[in-house]
């Protein structure tokens, strides 16, 4: 994986080959788990970074659940390499991995991702047909059992924010739900999106503040400051509903309600010059600065068990 071109966008096959290669190169640190299949039958791959132990407390990261947000899958690929490179070298990451596991789902919506490469660069949703409609797909970040069907999601299959026919109707969502429940010891859940440069915490479906709002806000403030320290990139932070808009059925609201205190959603670069078409030369700086914020969150979670 040393020769993998992290500064360019890649197809699903290239990313999946990269994952397998990373596992082959680092068998004592990285393994691949298939947590399910997408609607079109593609494996939902998760990389597990672990230095031992069974059912350790763990951190979850997913990228690319909205398939057109290419900067997220690209950054995530870089994160995977960064973890294996820095373990044993970076004291902060090493301390985390000596206590916790990290799970990384680089392509959370593979059907959508392939579709962005082959048919429609702007595709956001899953690719499951909707009964009674010619419009395809569900917004996989409106499909979770957290205020499902409320304001901030659409009941129309033709809408980009279509919530789906029922909670967890999308196999891509259900696979994560099942994994989170069966693991039972996730301490942080971080879902990475783009764009608009924000670090968000629950809630999105209700104005009721999260009971850990003060702690989440404080950690978010520190994380975005660390992110900014590299290239001066400015992030806003706060609850979803206060910072962007009301959105029901979102993943981190569900995970927070499941008891995962450190539930965050990132919106990576940029602030709207390119939107979802962020040029490839932005991948490395975006990944590098985001990593600083991630590491801050990892360390905080590791140092503040609950």
């Amino acid at each position: 994986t040393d020769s993998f071109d992290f500064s360019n966008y890649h197809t699903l096959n290239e990313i999946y080959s990269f994952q397998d290669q990373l596992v082959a190169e680092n068998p004592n640190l990285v393994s691949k788990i298939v947590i399910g299949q997408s609607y079109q039958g593609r494996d939902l791959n998760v990389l597990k970074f672990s230095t031992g132990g069974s059912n350790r407390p763990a951190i979850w990261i997913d990228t690319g659940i909205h398939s057109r947000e290419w900067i997220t899958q690209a950054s995530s690929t870089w994160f995977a390499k960064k973890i294996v490179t820095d373990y044993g070298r970076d004291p902060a990451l090493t301390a985390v991995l000596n206590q916790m596991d990290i799970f990384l789902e680089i392509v959370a919506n593979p059907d959508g991702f392939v579709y962005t490469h082959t048919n429609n660069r702007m595709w956001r949703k899953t690719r499951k047909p909707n009964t009674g409609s010619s419009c395809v797909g569900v917004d996989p970040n409106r499909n979770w059992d957290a205020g499902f069907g409320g304001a901030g999601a659409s009941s129309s299959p033709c809408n980009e924010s279509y919530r789906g026919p029922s909670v967890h109707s999308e196999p891509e969502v259900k696979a994560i739900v099942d994994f989170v429940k069966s693991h039972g010891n996730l301490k942080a859940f971080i879902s990475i999106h783009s764009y608009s440069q924000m670090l968000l915490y629950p809630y999105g479906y209700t104005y009721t503040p999260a009971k850990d709002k003060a702690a989440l806000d404080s950690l978010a403030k520190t994380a975005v400051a660390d992110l900014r320290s590299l290239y001066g990139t400015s992030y806003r932070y706060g609850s979803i509903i206060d910072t962007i808009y009301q959105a029901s059925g979102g993943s981190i609201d569900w995970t927070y309600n499941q008891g995962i205190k450190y539930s965050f959603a990132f919106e990576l670069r940029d602030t709207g010059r390119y939107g979802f078409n962020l040029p490839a030369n932005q991948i490395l700086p975006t990944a590098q600065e985001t990593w600083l914020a991630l590491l801050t969150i990892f360390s905080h979670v590791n140092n503040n068990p609950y």
Partner: protein
Amino acid sequence: KDTFEGHQVLRIVAKDVTQLPLIKDLEQFTDLQLDFWTYVNNVENPVDIRVPAHSLQYVKRYLETHGIGYSVMIEDLQAMVDEEQEQMKAAARSAEVFS
């Protein structure tokens, strides 16, 4: 394969809260086939919408009629997508040469 020839991404900035429902109304006009890249929430956050070529004139006139400020964030989306594809092809070619 979907193309985005003539599509623009407009950045809309509400002057005050009275303009928010007017912008939100655009979400209901399904015939316009608008793709909200960011949604309507408050006056602090701009609203970015991908507008197909056939809807551009209507949307711009709608915004101007209601005195809603906007700018063109992406002038030619297809050109940007083409450039992205070229970059990927070039990177793949150089990787082949390297190997």
